């Protein structure tokens, strides 16, 4: 095995392609299986006056119809704050909230029973947007603040000031596999849940909670998810809890797999934000003072909103040094489904705010926005501490900027775009470069830990269990690679098991892009324990054969499928042949590994500290062609340069960069969530909610990974890659804005929001044209 990273295909690629990969709905169950159904609230806010389940319970084939009073344990599934009932009791607080559960032999019987449930609601006033929540002081928790310097004084001293407001929209996760869980009862109160969850340990804890049993009676297993994107970090728990309740009530296996429309109606989204900003800057475009006020739509319960707002606040600087900086944040409680984690976790919303500011500064000064960006980048020696006090170490921004400006022919294309715009009346082009600096670690510091259990069998095969979950991102492929490399064996020898709470307990969610970082290190630590045992034993064997010059255990190396004395390379034994010796000599071939991220610490109250182990960097240049008369645009070309340290698997990392970017393009352009005036989701299926298709990727798409030194202090020198590229989609959003701005010769600031749908774009153009006419007539 060389030390060079290489691109092995995804360990499940053949199964994905042939359709043999097993998801929750594919697990074979005997004839006992019941189908579960969730009956949801049709009101955004209402009192439950009365209900009658008797008729529904009488339907043949129906085994259980449950209401909140039938829950044997706590009626609670809030992950952090206990403000989210598992089934609504006296009041419903959003459309799509679970009220009753049904288990029956067929889906049809479930629906028939649902029809016969009689429930009387008394509708109450509902809060359906951030402004209404603000005017009703419907605040969740308290206002948050992170500050540095004296913003007011710096505003007073600034050459120029801009102020404004930005709206960013919600986003649906659109995992291909909807929320799903299969629960199988065991003896006494044992239960096994096969859940499509990013957080098996929390799922286990909440199932135990609603059933009123101990956690050692609950096993949660995840083979793989058909996509997560944060949507299964906490909200997979819901489906799991409902399934477990029905399983307990019926003593039979029960499965719930939400229909797409129900899933979209019931589950939370990326938080909508309403952001207000003010910035003071010099004539050279250097930001002197910035104030950003972030307002998030939290929905009806807390979920992870505090942590999401915090990450938004910690990314309101993106890649820019701002000497005087005030970031405040608030979460507003509304009568919509509780909003939740989604790729970027507040980072995109915070980044969109500062990118809007920098873009406006450049337009105000009639300067190239890329140039203004680079002037404000964090420095490598000075101007390199963030507003929360962490030093930006190993800053790649200046180097990446120089490389990407060159490799994308940015300057030539800027001229070409301007020329095109000067000669075209009905079409304009736009070009934008945006960077990302993304902090890697859970900002709730204690979550930065992971465990692994590695077993070697006497035929020389290795089974790796770890706490991370596979959701299509290729975590298991990377873990397999890490294990093979640690033992110096080929990939064929290594298998990664399904994630299982009885093998590796008390894990954190696979989230915050940390899956490979944390679990990879835990696996390496488990492997180190096993290797030292093997080295001791094999050194003994070698020494017994060579009494004159003993082998030192510390000099044993693992490579080429062999265990070798580094001092005497002729003393070697095949890895597979060594394992029976271990068993005969009574040495354990099973070990756990544990890892916690060192050197981080974050004082949430003071807004100061080092929340992140390191930063991942990226940069993108996008060019669009805009049809001014319809608002339709085409993404002509995107160049991305991304920093993954020494990549463990470049093919998988490039896949994550491409996928994250495109998912971001959806958020920035076509994905629009709309609720009606009663709080009912209007965009609840693919005919009205438009994620990007293959037709929407850039016509010319160039992604490369930064050639760089190994990242210090991480698994095999790699960097996290799951979320950071998402933010690069802002290059598309701002390229569209650049094209719109060309309508008025870049003299006026366009009104713009996110997503920039065809409609938003066209109306922005119309307003610019009207303003231009008005100014011309004055």
């Amino acid at each position, binding site marked *: 095995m060389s030390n060079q990273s290489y691109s092995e295909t995804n360990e499940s690629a053949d199964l994905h392609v042939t359709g043999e990969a097993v998801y929750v709905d594919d697990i074979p169950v005997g004839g006992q299986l019941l189908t579960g159904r969730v009956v949801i609230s049709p009101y955004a806010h209402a009192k439950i006056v009365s209900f009658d389940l008797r008729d529904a319970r009488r339907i043949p084939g129906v085994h259980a119809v449950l209401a909140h009073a039938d829950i044997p344990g706590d009626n609670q599934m809030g992950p952090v704050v206990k403000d989210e009932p598992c089934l609504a009791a006296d009041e419903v607080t959003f459309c799509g909230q679970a009220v009753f559960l049904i288990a029956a032999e067929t889906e049809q019987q479930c*629906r028939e029973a649902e029809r016969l449930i009689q429930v009387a609601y008394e509708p109450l006033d509902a809060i359906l947007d951030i402004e209404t929540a603000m005017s009703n002081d419907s605040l969740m928790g308290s206002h948050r603040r992170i500050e540095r310097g004296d913003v007011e004084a710096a505003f007073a001293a600034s050459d120029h000031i801009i102020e404004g407001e930005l709206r960013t929209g919600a986003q649906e996760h659109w995992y291909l596999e909807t929320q799903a869980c299969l629960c199988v009862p065991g003896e006494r109160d044992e239960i096994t849940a096969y859940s499509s969850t990013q957080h098996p340990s929390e799922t286990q804890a909440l199932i135990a909670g609603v059933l009123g049993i101990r956690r050692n009676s609950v096993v949660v297993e995840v083979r793989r998810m058909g996509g997560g994107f944060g949507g299964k970090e906490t909200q997979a728990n819901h489906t799991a809890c409902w399934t477990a309740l029905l399983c307990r009530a019926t003593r039979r296996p029960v499965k719930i797999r939400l229909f797409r429309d129900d899933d979209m109606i019931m589950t939370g989204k990326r938080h909508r934000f309403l952001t207000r900003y003010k910035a003071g800057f010099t004539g050279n475009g250097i930001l002197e003072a910035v104030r950003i006020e972030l307002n998030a739509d939290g929905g009806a319960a807390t979920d992870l909103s505090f942590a999401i707002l915090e990450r938004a606040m910690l990314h309101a600087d993106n890649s820019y040094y701002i000497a005087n900086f005030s970031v405040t944040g608030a979460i507003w409680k509304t009568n919509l489904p509780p909003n939740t984690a989604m790729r970027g976790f507040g980072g995109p919303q915070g980044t969109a705010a500062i990118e809007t500011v920098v873009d406006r500064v450049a337009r105000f000064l009639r300067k190239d926005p890329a140039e203004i960006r680079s002037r404000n980048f964090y420095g490598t020696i000075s101007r390199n501490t963030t507003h929360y006090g962490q030093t930006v170490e190993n800053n790649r921004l200046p180097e990446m900027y120089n490389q990407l400006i060159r490799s994308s022919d940015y300057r030539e294309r800027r001229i070409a775009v301007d020329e095109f715009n000067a000669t075209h009346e009905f079409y304009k082009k736009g070009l934008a470069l945006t960077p990302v600096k993304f902090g890697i670690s859970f900002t709730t510091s204690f979550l930065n830990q992971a465990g692994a259990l590695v077993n070697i069998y006497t035929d020389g095969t290795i089974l790796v269990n770890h706490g991370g979950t596979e959701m299509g991102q290729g975590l298991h492929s990377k873990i397999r690679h890490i294990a093979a490399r640690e033992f110096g064996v080929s990939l064929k020898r290594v298998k990664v098991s399904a994630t299982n709470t009885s093998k590796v307990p008390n894990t954190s969610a696979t989230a915050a892009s940390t899956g490979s970082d944390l679990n990879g290190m835990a696996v390496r630590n488990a492997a180190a324990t096993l290797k030292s045992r093997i080295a001791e034993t094999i050194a003994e064997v070698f020494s017994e054969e060579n009494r004159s010059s003993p082998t030192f255990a510390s000099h044993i190396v693992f490579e080429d499928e062999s265990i070798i004395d580094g001092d005497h390379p002729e003393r070697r034994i095949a890895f597979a042949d060594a394992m029976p010796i271990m068993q005969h000599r009574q040495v354990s071939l099973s070990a756990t590994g544990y890892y916690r991220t060192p050197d981080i610490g974050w004082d949430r109250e003071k807004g100061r500290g080092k929340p992140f182990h390191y930063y991942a960097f990226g940069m993108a240049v996008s060019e669009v062609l805009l049809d001014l*008369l319809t608002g339709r645009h*085409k993404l002509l070309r995107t160049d991305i340069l991304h920093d993954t340290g020494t990549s463990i698997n470049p093919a998988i990392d490039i896949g994550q960069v491409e996928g994250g970017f495109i998912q971001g393009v959806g958020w920035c352009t*076509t994905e629009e969530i709309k609720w009606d005036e009663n709080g009912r989701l209007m965009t609840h299926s693919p005919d009205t909610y438009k994620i990007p298709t*293959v*037709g*929407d990727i850039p016509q010319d798409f160039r992604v490369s990974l930064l050639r760089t030194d190994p990242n210090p202090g991480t698994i095999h020198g790699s960097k996290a890659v799951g979320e950071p590229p998402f933010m690069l989609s802002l290059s598309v959003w701002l390229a569209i804005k650049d094209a719109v701005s060309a309508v008025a010769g870049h003299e006026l600031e366009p009104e713009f929001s996110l997503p920039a749908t065809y*409609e938003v774009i*066209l*109306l922005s153009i119309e307003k610019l044209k009207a303003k231009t006419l008005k100014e011309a007539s004055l």
Partner: protein
Amino acid sequence: MKPFDYIQAPSITDACIAAAEHSPAKFLAGGTDLLIELRRGNGNYPRSVVDISFLHELRGIEATPDGLIRIGPLTTHSELSSSALLRKNASFLSSAASTIGSPQIRNRGTVGGNVMNSAACADTVPPLIALGASVTLQSVEGRRTITLSDFFIGPYKNIARGDELLTSISFSPLPSVCRSSFVKLGRRNALSISRLSVAAVLGYDRDGRIADARIVPGSAFPVWRRAREAEQMLLGEEPSDKLFTAAGKRVSEAMVSYTGRRWSTEYKEAVITILVRRALEMCGRG
């Protein structure tokens, strides 16, 4: 999915008998709309589904001896897109079919299904109306032929009874002096449902004046219709940007007067003007 009887009909006559005897029935062609409707499970849920997808006599595109083009309702969108006969005689119908959904949907979905489902955004309907197409409906009670402009009565509504099977769509080929076009705008680049579409035909006389004008917008009116107001403006005129824009504006005004103002109107009224102008431009200048 709720249970229903599934009947595979070996002939058109059998299909009609089955639909009459097992009413309310739905005919299954490509299934791209019906299966979604069945799974949704609400509305007029059928007692039976009569599968006509094996009836080869309902498939294909041909020139009839009396000079018409006849399309079997089971002809798929893919087949419409690649038909040389259509490309020559009604090219905008091919173009419209090629913009529907994805390759999978175009391979399953049929023109008959598109017509019978009667969605306001059905992409094959604007060209068919512009062509003056007629549909033939058959039931145990007999056969009737109706022009498409009399067929639709509202979104997802038409005059066919539940037991009537669409057996043929026919129209006269476009005169050789005519050019046709189809443009549409969705919410993204592919697999997109039309938010607005326009089918247009222009024919010129020897002096280069417009002698034949047909404009049919999609997703614009509550009931499918030709934009006669705009067509009238064009007749006898020489083509120009100004004329085409004026025609677009006329369609836009008509749309607003028929549908009233809604949240999407501000966008749609600007865009329909442009789409009409572009559709007319694409028909050429004679």
